[in-house]
């Protein structure tokens, strides 16, 4: 611990294993650790699915099938409760988000430095083991959901969507009044409406991604703080650090499950708003 403490502190551990394509452009780099971990998790999920697919039975389910059936039943119920119409894409989307984020979050149960040290054996300087700590992952999923919601809005009720963009929330002034001055004022408010509505829409993916990222990142930072503050402090600190770390692990697992659920249910809610039939 000691050499880590003087080689850069907590910030040192919040570095990614990065490959830079272009040193001058901060966008042209890729976090290999995040990519590798997510691909491994995804591959594991697909392999599990294929393995399970071979031993499916329509009789009495047991073991893994039983477990997955209850997960799918739970996701299906959530989607059914929130959705006015049937869309065959929504439930698999919600399931993927829930399972994937939950698994990524659960990687946090591994000791904070484990992946870092293993990577060190291969000569790597940095390895962040929890991909949901990387803003890129939540942002990518949130943007996918956002684009999907926009797509359904435009597909299912384009006129209503554009009207909402232009006339909300000051539509009453624009449409309802016979007074030409007020009507003119309403027309003048269209740009303001547009800006407000755009902020409202963009806030959805932003809050969605930052909520997950913030929770997981903070959890990681707290692990690191526990490690630095307690584990460095002799025998008493080691023991205290072990138990505090254990407690935080349990709580953080709960947060991971909760955040996966929140991400899933907000996805369903955003998409169900897009599917709500137009009121007029």
């Amino acid at each position, binding site marked *: 611990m000691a050499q880590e403490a003087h080689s850069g502190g907590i910030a040192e551990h*919040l570095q990614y294993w990065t490959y830079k*394509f272009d040193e001058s452009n*901060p*966008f*042209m*780099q*890729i*976090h290999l650790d*995040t*990519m590798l971990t*997510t*691909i491994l998790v*995804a591959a594991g*999920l*697909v392999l*599990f*699915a*294929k393995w*399970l*697919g071979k031993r*499916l039975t*329509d009789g009495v389910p047991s073991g893994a*099938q039983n477990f*997955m*059936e209850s997960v*799918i*039943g739970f996701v*299906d119920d959530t989607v059914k409760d929130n959705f006015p119409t049937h869309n065959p*894409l929504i*439930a*698999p*989307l919600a*399931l*993927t988000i829930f*399972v*994937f984020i939950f698994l990524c979050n659960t990687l946090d149960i591994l000791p904070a430095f484990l992946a870092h040290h293993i990577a060190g054996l291969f000569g790597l300087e940095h390895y962040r083991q929890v991909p949901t700590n*990387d*803003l*890129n*992952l939540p*942002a*990518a*999923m949130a*943007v*996918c959901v956002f684009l999907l919601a926009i797509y359904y809005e435009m597909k299912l009720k384009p006129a209503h969507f554009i009207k909402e963009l232009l006339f909300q929330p000051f539509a009453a002034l624009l449409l309802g009044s016979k007074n030409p001055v007020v009507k003119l004022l309403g027309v003048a408010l269209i740009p303001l409406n547009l800006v407000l509505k755009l902020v409202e829409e963009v806030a959805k993916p932003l809050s969605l991604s930052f909520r997950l990222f913030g929770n997981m*990142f903070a959890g990681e930072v707290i692990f690191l703080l526990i490690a630095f503050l307690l584990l460095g402090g002799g025998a008493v600190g080691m023991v205290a650090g072990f138990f505090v770390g254990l407690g935080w692990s349990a709580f953080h697992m709960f947060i991971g499950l909760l955040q996966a659920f929140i991400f899933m249910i907000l996805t369903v809610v955003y998409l169900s708003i897009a599917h709500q039939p137009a009121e007029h």
Partner: protein
Amino acid sequence: MSIDLTFIGQIVVFLTLLALLKKYLYGPLHDLMEQRAAKIAEGLAAADAGKEAKAKAEAEIARQLQEARGKAQEILTAAEKRAAAIEEEITNKARVEAQQIVDSAREEVQAELNRARQQLRQEVADIALLAAERILDEELDAKRHAKLIDKVVSQEIGHA
């Protein structure tokens, strides 16, 4: 902590995972669960139908039992009535027959009595005539006095 190419990579990973999980995990399991739900619903419906059929059959049995009981009662009543009628008929017939027997017996007795009376009268007349003949043998002509004797005898017999 910055948005970079990882973002693009994550989109690719996420969408690929979504497609694969939809195909290999959600699809088959969801179909399976729906199949099972349909099967269970079918089973429950069949059980309900069976129960209904049983109830119907039981009602039918009860109805037929009731009917049979009613019919048996009817038959019994008819038989009793018939027996009573036959009994009365037989009694009447016997009574009539007995009356006839009594009547014919009485007639026979009367006829026998009449015949006996006739014979007796004849015999008494003969005896009287004989006696009178013997008494009045010498002087009395049997033919002249027969008329008188006959009259007396018939008077006497009529009184007897």
